[in-house]
């Protein structure tokens, strides 16, 4: 296969973003926020649309809207005592409607399923730096959030400021979703966050294995998805998610037959 610089940029970006999305997804699954990543992908849509309209970086546009969405959710959660899921649900459909209105028709498909074939060297470098940063933050907050998701009482007695960690956690999700929409688009980013973790959870005996395999499934899905797209000339985003789901199915079947 003829490997161009462009192809390498896509591959490297996807590996970093996919791996970190997988790790982060493992935390979302334990917090029972499986659908939040999905919803946030949609929250990003108006931002993506606006960026495409103005010729700005897609991730930047997405991030601005995600940040606003996440802060709104965090704030409303504290003020209204409604479940996060309800709030996310409301904001998510609102964003979707706005996104469809804003995004120019020809670019709508790119916004929805991503297009990694055009990432620049700058995009790639930024993705690498931000992914490593997010990984570092996840590593710091993981034990605290895990403990809080098992028992908020135990976390509080141990002087963990749950609200603060939830905010940091939502912020890093925004960063990863913003980076991920470039790879798989706003429609599919939820899958890239959740499916690797769901696959890893099937067989992991402890937290270390769980995080490690979530990340690795994320990386593998992106690599195989991109290679596959090079061969059969179909859109990368959906192929990445197909590979992802394949890992999940294999894990499930192996577990069933093992039992």
């Amino acid at each position, binding site marked *: 296969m003829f490997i161009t610089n462009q192809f390498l940029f896509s591959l490297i970006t996807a590996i970093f973003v996919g791996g970190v999305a997988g790790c982060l997804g493992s935390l979302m699954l*334990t917090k029972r926020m499986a659908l939040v990543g999905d919803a946030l992908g949609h929250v990003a849509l108006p931002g993506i649309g606006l960026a495409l309209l103005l010729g700005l970086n897609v991730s930047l546009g997405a991030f601005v809207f995600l940040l606003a969405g996440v802060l709104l959710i965090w704030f409303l959660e504290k003020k209204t005592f409604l479940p996060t899921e309800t709030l996310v649900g409301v904001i998510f459909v609102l964003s979707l409607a706005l996104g469809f209105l804003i995004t120019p028709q020809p670019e709508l498909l790119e916004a929805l399923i991503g297009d990694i074939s055009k990432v620049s060297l700058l995009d790639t470098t930024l993705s690498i730096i931000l992914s490593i940063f997010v990984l570092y933050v996840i590593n710091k907050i993981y*034990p*605290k959030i*895990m*403990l809080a*998701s*098992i*028992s*908020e*009482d*135990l976390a*509080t*007695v*141990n002087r963990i400021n749950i609200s603060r960690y939830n905010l940091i956690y939502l912020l890093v999700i925004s960063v990863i979703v913003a980076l991920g929409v470039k790879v798989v688009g706003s429609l599919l980013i939820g899958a890239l966050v959740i499916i690797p973790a769901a696959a*890893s*959870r099937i067989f*992991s*005996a*402890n*937290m*270390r*294995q*769980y995080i490690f395999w979530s990340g690795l499934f994320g990386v593998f899905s992106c690599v195989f998805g991109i290679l596959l797209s090079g061969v059969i000339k179909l859109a990368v985003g959906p192929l990445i998610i197909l590979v992802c789901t394949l890992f999940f199915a294999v894990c499930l079947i192996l577990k069933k037959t093992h039992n």
Partner: protein
Amino acid sequence: MQNILEVKNLTVNFNNEKVIDNLSFNLKKGENLVVVGPNGAGKTVLLRTLIGMIPFEGEIKWEKDVKIGYVPQKILPEKNIPLSIEEFFNFKKIDSNQIVKALKSVGINDLSVLKKKIGVISSGQLQRILIAWSLIGNPEILLFDEPLSGIDIEGEETIYNLLSRIEKERDLTIILITHDLSVVYKFADSVLCLNKESICYGPPQEALTPERLSQLYGGEIKLYKHVHH
């Protein structure tokens, strides 16, 4: 002796309904307080309010910089949550020697339990693990919320014998919620009968009269006073 906890006119409302009504009590260092009362009487709410989880009116005054251990009635784990018991202990940032010591003090000598997932162990064993976990960091006071159903006891030692032993070894103050009235006589320095408001409060021999108990549980109740040997 110094008070480790002073509660004055404590009231907790859920949706404009009083769950705890004008409750006052004090706890001296080293004393054991047992809280009894029917289901829905606000016992767990009381403990969760004391640790700062629930907004309240009135006054809760802890001794300055007091270290609190809390053993909740239950924790969330779904059966397949990928968290080993060893990792659960590591949340407290301690070395493995301390884990082993904490497990031994609650009567767990088989260390293979550390590799197990936290969602798959028996409720009796989970109770012990939670006690061990709460003891790490040497709390001065332990808040213990007994599960509703009788837990399966492994080995000879009951949870109450275990608590008595730990209390003596570590010079702890304990607040214990229980359904088992016989525990009150064995264990309590003072008893608090709670049914939203305080029905009785004081040393068990004085406070736990048959009249108070029928008032607390709303009917006839058979009480077996355990004679101390």
